[in-house]
């Protein structure tokens, strides 16, 4: 469903991704790991269509379409969801209002009827339970004054509500205690199905103790330098990233 070929991306003329190849099939969970500054977040943002990132080469095809031709909101309505590392606060916009608008925007695109107020509330309540959030969050301004954990749960809530085909989690585990981490993992596991794919960007292996990936890729210096199954993540946990760096140095040396 997602096919990335030789993707090259720069920010302000600085090359960040230097030829990424990745193939994601429906229902697969891919973990992208790597040391800080390797380009992991860039990859997540490019998939969502963030414009500061300039694609200088390569291609991304999503469900047979050229993803790079689509605007940010078109990609979202086509089923791509990005769980943000740092969700922004939007003062004065109530969380419930925001959720209603987004859910209906996505539904209309899929040819579904908009939910009325009663149906919407029921739908939102179900998903609140899924991520262990209290209904009182709905009245608060979007992400304003939320703790780090609450923000990440809110991201998971939105993922559950928008029912994406491809969910990209950008270091969703960073800064979370073990309980919050479990909630995130739990949400992902409940939403896993044969048609929904996940790309989980993470620095640490610990999230992958709860979400078992089908594939693990190591991103270093703008390239995927190693791919494997879940055991690769365990290896990284044991040995850190230095051995990868050394391998790459030896190859390039």
């Amino acid at each position, binding site marked *: 469903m997602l096919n990335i070929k030789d993707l090259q991306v720069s920010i302000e003329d600085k090359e960040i991704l230097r030829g990424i190849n990745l193939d994601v099939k429906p229902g697969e969970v891919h973990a992208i790991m790597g040391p800080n500054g390797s380009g992991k977040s860039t990859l997540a943002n490019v998939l*969502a269509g963030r414009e500061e990132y300039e694609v200088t080469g390569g291609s991304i095809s999503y469900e047979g379409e050229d993803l790079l031709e689509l605007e940010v909101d078109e990609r979202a309505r086509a089923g791509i969801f990005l769980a943000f590392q740092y969700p922004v606060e939007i003062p004065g916009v109530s969380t419930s209002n925001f959720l209603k*608008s*987004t859910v209906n925007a*996505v539904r209309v695109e899929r040819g579904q009827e908009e939910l009325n107020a009663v149906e919407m509330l029921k739908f939102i309540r179900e998903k609140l339970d899924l991520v262990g959030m209290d209904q009182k969050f709905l009245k608060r301004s979007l992400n304003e004054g939320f703790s780090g954990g609450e923000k990440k749960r809110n991201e998971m809530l939105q993922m559950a509500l928008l029912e994406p085909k491809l969910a990209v989690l950008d270091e969703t585990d960073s800064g979370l205690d073990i309980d919050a981490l479990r909630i995130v993992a739990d949400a992902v596991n409940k939403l896993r199905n044969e048609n929904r794919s996940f790309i989980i960007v993470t620095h640490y292996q610990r999230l992958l103790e709860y979400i078992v990936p089908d594939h693990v890729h190591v991103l270093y210096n703008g390239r995927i330098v190693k791919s494997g199954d879940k055991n690769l993540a365990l290896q990284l946990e044991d040995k850190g990233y230095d051995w990868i760096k050394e391998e790459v140095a030896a190859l390039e040396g």
Partner: protein
Amino acid sequence: MSDSMQTLEAHTRSDYKYGFTSNIDTDKLPKGLNEDTVRAISAKKNEPEFLLEWRLKAFRQWQEMTEPNWPNVHYPPIDYQDIIYYAAPKKKPKLKSLDEVDPELLRTFEKLGIPLDEQKLLAGVAVDAVIDSVSVKTTYKEKLAELGIIFCSFSEAVQDHPELIKKYLGTVVPANDNYFAALNSAVFSDGSFVYIPKGVRCPMELSTYFRINERDTGQFERTLVVAEEGSYVSYLEGCTAPMRDENQLHAAVVELVALDDAEIKYSTVQNWYPGDKDGKGGIYNFVTKRGLCEGKNSKICWTQVETGSAITWKYPSCVLKGDNSIGEFYSVAVTNNRQQADTGTKMIHLGKNTRSTIISKGISAGFSDNSYRGLVKIGKKAENAHNFSVCDSLLMGDKCGAHTFPYLEVENNTAKVEHEATTSKIGEDQLFYLMQRGLSEEDAVNMIVNGYCKEVFNELPMEFAVEAQKLLAISLEGSVG
């Protein structure tokens, strides 16, 4: 410039949607201004001698005054002899029902989206519709009369309640207060008068729709609201105007008087023609609005949503004379394209334990300039006065300007004054976040802007708040979808 900034600019480049002219026959004076003009206006309105004298005195004072040049706005000199100072619809029917109203007028209201009949039925709002300078229609008058409430055109009040006019006119905004107030005092044609008797809580929102309709006619409205002891009233003022090529001068005066324990809530949604994308045409809105908290425990609250006019010069103010009195000012001012606004408030604390709150939200887009100018003054005898001010500015695009001019004069050291000010650009991070959730760029911008203005919208009566949100969306939306 990034792509999203370009799109933002496109969003904010939109045309005025209420541009049309209705053909209602009018009776008007020739252009020009001298003592004879003032006398003619007074005679046409069959005014008592005291009012003519008051006008003439104001006119003589105006002649000695000079136009203010301190506001942060720029416009070509106004030729005061090239303005028609009086125009009234030719037909002056006394109407009992909407059937008797000029159908052309009704259509005008429909185009504006404010059908009178619907208003009457659904909202329970008494509407005093002002087309140009003479009131055409007043509703709900009888019901209000049962409570002793007077809600009528200013001209009617002059005829029917001259003692009240004589007692209160010019007590809050003296005729020589400033250049435009003096001009208004000399030539005002009509407006609204509200009187709430002692202990009465007005059961409905009182509403007046102003509309500038006659080409080249300066509008000089005069509004006076008096709330007697222990009374309450909420007054709504909403404005739209048809498209024009020439600039039109509008210099209104609004005076509010609140006696002991009385409360006046005055809400405005202003959407006069702002001129086209290049700044051609548009209304000059030079208004003096002031409320006097005369009695103890009285309260005056100004709420305004200003989206229109080429130039806005307006400082709804409160004079907190009574002990424990409260003044509030909630404002959203939007400027787009070439619009200029210099607006804010003055809170004058004279009594003990007086409190004031200022919440100002400026939004600048296009090539516009938006200035907040506010004065907080704590007098010598104002023990324990307290002011809290927040002045926020939001910039959309990188060719507009936001300015804040806060003035503070404290003569009593028991005062507590807090001021917060921020300037921010509409966040690309916020836009990206909302769009990543499937909202179009336009919906995302509206959501962010409405959130930013929420504190002010919360102060508006419900139906007005909805209208204000629509206006905001219209003001900021672009030709590119």
